């Protein structure tokens, strides 16, 4: 018998990867998420290399070229004081990317731990946190953001802080609700029974399981943050002129929608593109972090 012997079994056992490593591996396999990641990285590159990519000075005005339609010289046309829209869209990536990402990062860094604490510890700690969170949530988001931004002073940085802090209560609430839901699951009971300290349970067992809605909300929040920055800059509290941001470009464009629609189309599409790619990425992350999925 010329039986082909099976290849010898590998002698080393595969290293047991932690939930985070597994997640990364799963992420790599999802196509949609990779596309999202690629686009996000493209935007980041656009932001970092704007001085070299933008064909013209984004703040150079030109009286003779006001509100011109797209042409060979100005690919996206010009705006209300003759600036090149294409260059402004490229340069605007920085402000919008920062506005979206930094604000949401602040919200996550503040909101998730607080929510975890509230949900996990329970009792009077939960009571106080919940009451204060409810109070914040009861105030209109825009009012909170305006008050904070006005207090801190008009600048992009302060606008990001204001938006981030104002959006924190949503994450607190969401995290807390998820934690409470998951707390009663069997595997948490099991982890506790085995003798894991609460912090380890929180980080290793609870967090990956509640990550899904938080990640989804975070990616959605990026969209609202970019638009919130627009509202704030409209009120003089965000990115100061003449530096561009997609949101403030949209704001100005709405006054010229009849005679210069190109002023709105490109910043609008850029915001859409950014939001879409973050959401694709977020989807991938969500799937990757779900321990129940292959």
């Amino acid at each position, binding site marked *: 018998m010329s039986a082909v012997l099976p290849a010898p079994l590998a002698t080393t056992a595969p290293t047991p990867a932690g939930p985070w490593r597994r997640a990364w591996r799963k992420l790599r396999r999802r196509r949609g998420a990779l596309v999202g990641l690629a686009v996000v990285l493209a935007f980041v590159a656009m932001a970092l290399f704007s001085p070299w990519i933008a064909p013209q000075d984004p703040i150079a005005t030109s009286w003779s070229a006001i509100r011109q339609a797209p042409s060979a010289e100005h690919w996206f046309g010009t705006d209300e004081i003759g600036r090149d829209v294409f260059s402004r869209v490229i340069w605007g990536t920085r402000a919008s990317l920062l506005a979206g990402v930094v604000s949401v990062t602040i919200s996550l860094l503040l909101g998730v731990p607080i929510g975890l604490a509230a949900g996990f510890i329970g009792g009077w700690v939960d009571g106080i946190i919940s009451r204060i969170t409810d109070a914040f949530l009861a105030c209109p988001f825009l009012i909170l953001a305006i008050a904070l931004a006005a207090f801190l002073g008009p600048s992009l940085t302060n606008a990001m802080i204001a938006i981030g802090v104002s959006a924190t209560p949503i994450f607190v609430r969401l995290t807390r609700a998820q934690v409470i839901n998951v707390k009663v699951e069997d595997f948490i009971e099991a982890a506790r029974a085995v003798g894991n300290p609460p912090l380890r349970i929180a980080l290793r067992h609870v967090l990956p399981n509640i990550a899904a809605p938080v990640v989804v909300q975070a990616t959605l929040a990026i969209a609202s943050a970019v638009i919130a920055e627009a509202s704030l800059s409209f009120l003089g509290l965000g990115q100061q002129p003449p530096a561009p941001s997609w949101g403030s470009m949209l704001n100005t464009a*709405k006054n010229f929608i009849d005679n210069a629609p190109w002023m709105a189309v490109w910043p609008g599409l850029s915001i859409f593109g950014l939001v879409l790619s973050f959401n694709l990425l977020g989807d991938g992350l969500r799937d990757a972090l779900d321990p129940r999925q292959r």
Partner: protein
Amino acid sequence: MKLSARLLCSALLLALAPFATQAQTLRVGLAEDPDVLDPSLARSFVGRVVFSALCDKLFDIDEKLAIQPQLATGYEWSADSKTLTLKLRQGVTFHDGEKFDAAAVKFNIERHKTMPGSNRRGELAPVASVDVVDTNTVKLNLAAPFSPLLAQLADRAGMMVSPKAAQAAGDKFGLKPVCSGPFKFVERVAQDRIVLERYPQYWNAAAIHFDKLVYTPIPDATVRLSNLKAGQLDFIERVASSDIAKLQSDKKLKTSRITEIGYQGITINIGKSEKAKQNPLGRDARVREAFELSLDRTGLAQVVMDKEATVGNQWVAPTNAYYAKNVPVPKRDIARAKQLLKEAGVPNPSFTLVAPTTSDAQRLALVVQAMTREAGFDVKIQAAEFATSLNMADKGDYEAYILAWSGRADPDGNLFSFHGCKQPLNYTGYCDAETDKLLNQSRELRDPAERKKVFDQIAARVMKERPVIYLYHRNWLWAYTARLSGVREIPDGLLRVTGLKLAS
């Protein structure tokens, strides 16, 4: 079968007949929601639009800014200019039926002067007392001659409310105003609408062709215009300058352009606070002159306002009778500007220009920044919402500030509060004893020619220091349905309802 159908049709027609002659309503779109509708307490421009239909005044102004009779049919100054005798119109009643007479005028003037929170107190300050001579004649006694008084009486200070209603309502009068204009108050829903209906006993009822007036505040200019185009409004004020050109070719709409009596300018801190001395712009008049010379006003009017503005360099437009021809609008001169900066020792001055968040002001700031760069200026822009910027101006916590003024019929209204020492609207800190003397003099003289001579002198003095760089006078831009006729284009930007007709 056919007979009953015909009967049914006739019955329907008969039932609907009364509705054939529908009440005519004029729907006006405003750019803001007016504040309180009490002539003594009112403080906004847009409130005056509603007042022009609701509350008659002693006088009105016409297209040439000349005083016209309204509730007062004539006036006479005493020889020493310290007494103004007014002859009042007879047969006028307030919306509640009360008679309008000299006693009512006395009551109103005193109310304007003494009501807590009254914004007319300063406007009528020179009026020391009011005497009722007879039912149709009243005498205003002044502490000192004050020629702008007639112009004041052609505005809110001359609006007359029903004494009975005012006394009954106290400070809540503004919620249900009772005046003597062609339309009386029906209802108001904050930020939604103000509804007025025709007052049948109006003294000039023949000239009123509407039964109802509805004012709707719509702050966004694009939305306001869309409403007009969609047929939901008949008239809108403050059309965006970028939209007006296209409307010319729309057969269903008509437009009006009126040069305002106000202005748009840049206010500079030259002495309001310590900040003035810390910045070359505030310290040195040469730097300010260089700044002015590096501006191309025609270019500004073109780029910022789509040419819907008249270039100027004073508090009144060059077309105004009181414009000082001895201080003409300077042409752009970069070479001279650079030379001045060299002389002043600051070839690249840097300062922060505060710009309110209206779209016009933001554009203006950007264009000014670009224009002055050529002469070496480094202008930083700080956008500020109105309340914050006002506070900054009042405290002197700024270097330069884009500020517009809605304007008053008498040039004194554009001048005194701004350039008089320590006056409420003097944000620049300009204070010159000789200018103050001239300002007071201009108030005391009655002859326009003599006043003009004084204004010329004031212009020369003030413009040398350049506390305010006046840029241009914007056009009031109105758009309305082509069916509307009788629109009077008066430079204060307020729609008059007398003579307005809407063809069906």
